[in-house]
């Protein structure tokens, strides 16, 4: 019984690390640029395909291809922010919603056309490996993914709190007008924020590739959990999103284990409703930004 419970928690934490990379991206964009990026899942998908093609064409390990997928998606983020998002920033939310939603549909259907609906997997030496400790097991690929995800989240935290650009980002997220008065160029800050968020999505894609299949709809699977985590962890709060993501992973795993294999999401959304009922602005609200 304890063994099953412990195993369920381990499973949940490991997958929660991936949810965290996606949700931190969403919450960063929301916090700084103040828009909801519905296309975040599709950028995870692009990250996966980048790693897939680098692995199959050039034999590059998906984890190594992180150094390609992250910069490529960072650049894509900067360009999207500069040419698309910047034009719709204003008091009206509707154009922003439509823009990112349209972006999601466009990327989805483009990739269906280019890559077809087939499932693509990459086989690495560690894909099917696991460490066995007592009666428990820890899949190596997921452990690596979790560790890198946590390291990247940590780096982001350090960046936001110790560098000028990071502080500027936090300032712009708190009050754009005052930040501008202080000499911060919001367009530059927004571009970096959007790029960073997409780079995280790309990282999630590369980290997933050794143990998950790439297909055009793959982003949708992860983005749902990410949105739940973003709301639970307080909108715009990076640390909140991280903690909430790990909680979501564990809640889903426990739900499947002890409630029913089709009830993982029921438990997750039950938890979300409870949170909203008792702490409407999310778990991260008290700590501030």
């Amino acid at each position, binding site marked *: 019984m304890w063994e*099953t419970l412990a*195993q*369920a928690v381990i*499973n*949940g934490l*490991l*997958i929660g690390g*991936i949810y965290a990379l996606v949700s931190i991206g969403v919450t960063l964009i929301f916090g700084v640029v103040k828009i909801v990026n519905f296309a975040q899942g599709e950028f995870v998908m692009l990250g996966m395909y980048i790693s897939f093609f680098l692995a199959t064409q050039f034999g590059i390990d998906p984890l190594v291809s992180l150094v390609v997928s992250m910069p490529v998606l960072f650049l894509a983020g900067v360009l999207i922010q500069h040419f698309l998002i910047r034009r719709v920033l204003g008091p009206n939310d509707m154009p922003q919603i439509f823009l990112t939603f349209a972006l999601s549909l466009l990327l989805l259907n483009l990739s269906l056309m280019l890559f*077809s*609906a*087939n*499932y*693509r*997997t990459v*086989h690495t030496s560690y*894909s*099917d*490996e*696991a460490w*066995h400790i007592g009666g428990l*097991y820890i*899949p190596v690929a997921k452990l690596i993914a979790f560790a890198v995800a946590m390291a990247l989240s940590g780096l982001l935290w350090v960046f936001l709190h110790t560098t000028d650009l990071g502080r500027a980002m936090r300032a712009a997220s708190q009050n754009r007008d005052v930040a501008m008065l202080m000499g911060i160029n919001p367009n530059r800050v927004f571009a970096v924020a959007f790029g960073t968020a997409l780079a995280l999505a790309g990282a999630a894609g590369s980290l997933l590739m050794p*143990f*998950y*299949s790439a*297909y055009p709809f793959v982003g949708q*699977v*992860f983005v749902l*959990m990410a949105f739940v985590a973003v709301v639970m962890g307080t909108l715009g709060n990076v640390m909140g999103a991280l903690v909430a993501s790990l909680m979501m992973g564990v809640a*889903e*795993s*426990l739900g*499947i*284990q002890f409630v*029913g*294999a*089709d009830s*993982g*999401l029921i438990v997750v959304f039950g938890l979300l409703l409870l949170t909203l009922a008792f702490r409407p602005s999310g778990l991260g609200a008290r700590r501030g930004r």
Partner: protein
Amino acid sequence: MPGDRKPSAINNAAPTNASRTKLNRRKFLVKTGGVLAAGAFGAVPLRGWAADPINIGALYPSTGSMAQIGIGCVAAAKLAVDMVNEAGGIKSLGGAKLNLIVSDVQSDTTVTRTETDRLITGNKLSAIHGCYASALTLIASEVCERARVPIITGSSSDQLNKGRSYTFTPFARASQFAKAQLQMAKLVSEQAKVAVIFENTAFGTSTSNGLKELAPGEGVEIVMFEPYSAGFTDASPLINKVKASGANTLFSLSYLNDLILIVRTVKQVGLDIAINGGSGGFVMPDFYKNVGKAAEGLQGVAHWNHDVNEDAQKVNAEFKKRTGEFAFEYAGGLVAQTFMLADALERAASADPKKVRDALSTLDVSSGYAAMAPGGKVKFGPDGKNVYGRPVGVQWQNADLASIFPKEDARAPLLKT
């Protein structure tokens, strides 16, 4: 029902005489013209001119979500037509060649309806084959029934055998697959304890219920019966449950992506359990490419396998040469189906779809490419079902699918994992 046959016999009475005279005249011309011209020009170029080609419609999804198998089906359909034509075409029709008219049904039910209609109205077809996927085949079959064009299909849906007279299904039905899976569980252990996990969709629920109903009769105990939501991110919790159930065989009724995750997770956990992945995507070459060595020893069921007999192995070799992959169940089945059509055309001595349908209904073969199926014999009952049809149990061995069940069809011993 005997009543089912009658209307078609009456309907066919009228055109019979007219087309027979026409055909006899054509035959006469073909023979005399052929002989006369052969002296003057040599026989070879005239053979194409002599007999009108026979149009066979092929409905497959070569784009969209089902495209992967659909494209393989089209390749097999072309191979089959080439084989029939190289062997001299339809001799009773003056060596007429089969002409394949391929139509893409785009993995979409609406498109399937319009494409089937368009194919039938736009071409003089003798018969149609397609669409492999049950959801699409059911619709194509409806259109064919209305237009009175025979359709022969590898789809396993039992619904295709209800109230239809132009639909022919030469291979095992879905209901037979469940039974075969349960019997295979007993190969692994006399005390078969089966865990059934299935996605909570129409496909998963209906198939799993079939297994549940049949299990007691086959002496198989189901120790876990659990639906899961398709498209999960992590199979670990589910496999954790399977482990706790103490099962020695796992039936996973899943689509490809979930199944890949499940198999990989079972290996990671180090769980000692026989896995039966059923049919569909599981018995495709792509499955092994995705899962790799972890697929070794996994069992499944198929309506056709490339080692069933020598003819099948020949087809497999040729298919491999053309596509680089072994002939999967639908591909090999399609070659057999095309030869069944050729047999019917030969006996009908007519390209008229109604006569081809009648000839198909009296098909009875036990040798040659047309009989290349598990069981080795094809004869259609009044419901269009092959009375000898049965599934074959297969296992992944050395990156290839080997037939292991039932005894009569086994070509390799069961690999214990």
